[in-house]
């Protein structure tokens, strides 16, 4: 800062110097004749006072010059110069657009969240885009004649009715039979065809209570092996007297899959693992959380048939191979839509059908 100010000063002085009109013309003419001369003979532009004409450094200076020593001296005095390398650390948190400096965008390789890829195109995904989406839209097509208006539905939240003076301006009441507002389901058009959003693989190791954490470690490694992703462990939130479970001990592990990894896992599940389960009727058709996310579970022996585990079965203690809970999160707003989508992907369902 200081240096730039110093540099600025002579320029400022020169600019501020008053020049009369005739003098300015003089100067301009001189400049133009100079330019013409330079164009004729470019060597005129060179400065006459070259640094080559200066005398070389003295013997004494040459011997005294020791950059390594001076650096060490500066370091010793804690006045070290900044490194010549560019040492920028992106801030750990993005504090919004008003923050003075923000981490680089996620697509920048310098970002810590940068993920290279995708490196492959999943067959399941291309099947979805080429076939399933269009067929799904045709299957669920609901015709609406021009000018058709759907009948108005009642308000989802109820007003407070009664003589109580405190009911005035009170926040609206939730729906009957519970305060949960279900998702609204809209008719399916070309804009909202459901697709798989993410997939969660979860395992709960109850044996941790009885025999220590080894079970959870093995479960984590198995999960990592079959999904190709890092595992997150979860601690118990509540103590459970019946199980002898205390609060705060690591007891479960999950993996969240998205994008490429998700489709590959799903492909493996549908085409390799599920067909080989013996005496399996499929996923129960009533599964779901009412908002388009379906869950099903597998016994430990099914986990053992994942190709990664099966090929390296001896690497795992056989009694510690975990069972799995798999939740498929879809963009469908209702379970029946999600179920139809997963049927199209090849997951079999059985049993009673609700809604």
């Amino acid at each position, binding site marked *: 800062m200081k240096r730039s100010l110093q540099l600025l000063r002579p320029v400022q002085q020169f600019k501020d110097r008053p020049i009369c009109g005739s003098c300015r013309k003089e100067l301009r003419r001189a400049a133009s004749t100079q330019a013409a001369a330079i164009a004729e003979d470019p060597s005129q532009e060179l400065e006459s006072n070259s640094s080559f004409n200066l005398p070389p450094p003295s013997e004494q200076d040459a011997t005294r010059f020791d950059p390594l020593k001076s650096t060490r001296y500066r370091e010793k005095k804690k006045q070290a110069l900044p490194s010549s390398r560019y040492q920028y650390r992106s801030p750990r948190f993005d504090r919004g657009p008003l923050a003075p400096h923000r981490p680089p965008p996620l697509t920048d390789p310098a970002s810590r969240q940068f993920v290279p890829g995708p490196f492959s195109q999943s067959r399941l995904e*291309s099947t979805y885009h080429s076939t399933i989406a269009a067929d799904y839209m045709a299957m669920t097509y*609901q015709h609406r004649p021009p000018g058709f208006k759907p009948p108005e539905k009642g308000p989802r939240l109820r007003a407070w009715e009664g003589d109580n003076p405190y009911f005035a301006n009170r926040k609206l009441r939730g729906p009957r039979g519970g305060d949960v507002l279900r998702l609204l389901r809209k008719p399916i058009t070309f804009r909202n065809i459901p697709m798989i959003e993410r997939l969660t693989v979860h395992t709960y190791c109850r044996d941790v209570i009885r025999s220590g954490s080894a079970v959870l470690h093995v479960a984590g490694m198995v999960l990592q092996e079959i999904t190709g992703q890092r595992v997150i462990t979860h601690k118990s939130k509540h103590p459970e007297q019946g199980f002898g479970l205390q609060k705060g001990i690591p007891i479960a592990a999950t993996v969240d899959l998205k994008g490429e990894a998700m489709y590959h896992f799903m492909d493996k599940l549908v085409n390799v693992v599920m067909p080989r389960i013996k005496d399996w009727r499929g996923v129960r058709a009533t599964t779901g959380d009412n908002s388009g996310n379906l869950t099903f579970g597998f016994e430990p022996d099914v986990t053992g048939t994942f190709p990664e585990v099966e090929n390296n079965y001896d690497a795992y203690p056989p009694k510690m191979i975990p069972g799995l809970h798999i939740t498929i999160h879809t963009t469908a707003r209702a379970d029946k839509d999600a179920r139809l989508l997963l049927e199209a992907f090849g997951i079999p369902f059985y049993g009673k059908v609700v809604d």
Partner: protein
Amino acid sequence: MVCLSLRSALASAFGIANRSSTLGVAPQLQHIIQSTRHHRPQDAAAATFSTSSSTFAKKKALIRYHLYHPTTLTPRPLRFSRNRALRHWTIHRAWNLYRMKVKRRRELELERQYNAMAAANEELRVGAGDGGKLFRKAQMKIGTWSIPERGGGVPIEYARGQVEWVGTVAGGVGGPAKIWDHEWKRA
């Protein structure tokens, strides 16, 4: 979380040892690694997951270290030189553009199909001359959201074998698989 996992996945896929040297490992783990690395063969034969408690503790510490230690979880950011960064940026933008085009094409195709369905249904409703009976029959979605076991839904054969018909070169849609594009010439 995804990036971390991807890194490990890549490392395992390409057979890159995560840490070949113990230089970056925490000092309290150095001796554990040393002891587990230079154990005698008879130990190796006897060592399973549940032997003596000390070996087990060491193994557990190692597993824990490689699974959860922040130094293994947080990858260093990649630093590119200017030209390489520019190259990356250009490719990234081109890839995004391509993806957007593909997405747009899919959307337009779906919209076209939807509009065609709407026109056909409208024709069926008004112009078929049967008072809209066929139309009403077509709109009865009986068993659509059911399951094959109950005579509705999507048959299980629908999803199988489809994959053999879509993995084409250059993002083609439908048609038999084209593994190699023999007509391709350098422009």
